[in-house]
């Protein structure tokens, strides 16, 4: 059976949910193998999960050089694996880094690349949602290896046991892969919440939140739902919430199961980043706000009274 490679997205070795989604999708195309790239020792935390979601093989490359330089080492290793294994396809997470690694792999292997797919058919055809969700496109890679980056939450992860046989790779990087070195990694904001790109539920605040203090309400609601926190550009530009939480055309693109927009009018730039969410709930005091045009459920009201009541209600019902 043809081999399908999946690049593992992980945090300190622990696979993110999108990895399991990619492994689930890969089974439609062939036999999934995972590629684990990280710092020495990190793969130990990944193997059990990768086996549980059907990885037959796990190619492991661990080196300080992989995490010490920006994207190029990962691309070099993946390109080497493609040359050695001739997979029918390689699936990447549609994160900023996943897309960048995929791009470099495409150049190195002379392959085509489809990014931000929301679905992938067994014949390798990818579905993309473009122009702020107005057009759905089905495309195929026509040159080289089929390279696809898949958005988180595109498919529900389904368990299926795999052998997860480890094959260690030797890491010998070219000098050109070491061109951009990471001097330091700084963690900002509060930990403990799911990552925006990966989260099943996202609660976002916008101009209506009114001030940085107001985001405590958004965070409270997010925590009651186990959600990630997003923000509109108006809110991040005003400095009310860190920029990496910005959802929209110039920020992150999310497609969670549930998106709750609080005090967000829904300008087209914002919609471009969240329109493919499965279910959308909007809370806004302006009944004319465009966000209501795409909401599955909209509440016209003052967020400062509705959100605390809603948070309390959710906590109560969830016990």
């Amino acid at each position, binding site marked *: 059976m043809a081999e399908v490679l999946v690049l593992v997205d992980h945090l300190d070795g622990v696979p993110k949910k999108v990895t399991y989604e990619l492994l689930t999708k890969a089974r439609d195309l062939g036999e999934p193998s995972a590629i684990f790239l990280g710092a020495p020792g990190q793969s130990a935390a990944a193997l059990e999960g990768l086996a549980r979601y059907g990885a037959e093989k796990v190619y492991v490359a661990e080196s300080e050089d992989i995490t010490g330089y920006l994207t190029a080492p990962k691309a070099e290793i993946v390109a080497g694996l493609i040359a050695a294994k001739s997979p029918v396809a390689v699936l990447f997470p549609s994160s900023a880094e996943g897309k960048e690694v995929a791009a470099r792999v495409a150049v190195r292997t002379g392959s085509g690349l489809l990014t931000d797919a929301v679905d992938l058919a067994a014949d390798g055809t990818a579905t993309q949602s473009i122009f702020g969700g107005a057009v759905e496109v089905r495309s195929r890679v026509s*040159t080289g290896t089929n390279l696809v980056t898949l958005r988180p939450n595109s498919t529900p992860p389904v368990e299926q046991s795999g052998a997860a046989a480890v094959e260690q790779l030797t890491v010998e990087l070219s000098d050109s892969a070491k061109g951009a*070195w990471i001097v330091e990694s700084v963690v900002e904001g509060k930990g403990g919440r799911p990552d925006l790109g990966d989260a099943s539920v996202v609660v976002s605040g916008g101009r209506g939140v009114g001030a940085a203090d107001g985001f405590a309400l958004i965070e409270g609601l997010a925590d009651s739902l186990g959600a990630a926190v997003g923000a509109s550009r108006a809110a991040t530009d005003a400095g009310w919430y860190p920029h990496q939480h910005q959802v929209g055309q110039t920020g992150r693109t999310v497609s969670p199961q549930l998106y709750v927009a609080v005090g967000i009018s829904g300008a087209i730039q914002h919609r471009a980043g969240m329109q493919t969410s499965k279910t959308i709930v909007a809370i806004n005091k302006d009944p004319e706000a465009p966000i209501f045009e795409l909401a599955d459920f909209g509440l016209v009201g003052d967020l400062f009274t509705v959100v605390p009541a809603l948070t309390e209600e959710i906590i109560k019902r969830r016990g």
Partner: protein
Amino acid sequence: MNIVVLVKQVPDTWAERKLSDSDKTLDRASVDVVMNEIDEYAVEEALKVKEASGDDSTVTILTMGPERAVETIRKALSMGADKAVHLTDEALHGSCALQTSYALAKVLETLHYDLVICGSESTDARLSIMAPLLAERLGRPQLSGARKLTVGDGTARIERQTENGYDVVEAALPAIVSVVEKINEPRYPSFKGIMAAKKKPLTTLTLADAGIEADRVGLASATSSVESFSNRPPRQSGQIVKDEGDGGSRVADFLASQKFL
């Protein structure tokens, strides 16, 4: 210091964007076009680097696109860039991102650059991979997603937005940098700038001029192809209710009905 800024002309986000029925490429002819928004930040950052590093620096705009992209080039020049190169050829129509990076790399190889700066993504295709594509093609370091850029002593250093904060990343020049809109506040072209832009050097290149093989670009040899597309009906709005003091529990009821609670 020679800085090249990649600038793209895109359909206005506010306009209705369509794929053409005939060849399934973006219809660029029938819509209002603007400079890709993040590219304004790229131009601004290049001008700031130039201003900080002294008078002998130059900022060159590089644009690939149809004839009318000249309007966008003029805007970048009116902001203060020194000169521009416009790669334009019918045969480029329908090029995929990989082909585009090939063509841009071919032109960049003929320019003397210390720094290439581009926006992190365009509002039309939104792939956000041009910086890594060019870095790979040119064998230069990739400094992508910069919210801050510092240049000096033959190196460039950026703050790169990550999912939970930022990385500080450094590379030797020449390097390929992409910027996010957090990086600065683009200037508006002054009247003087607009007048001066009309006289600034603009070099127009065809594929042949740039030494780009015609079979390496364009729709026929694109590395991926659109099989079909459908214009999705606008999302139907669902139930909209007004808060009558029970708004919190109304929303909770809906979430429960959708099995989120």
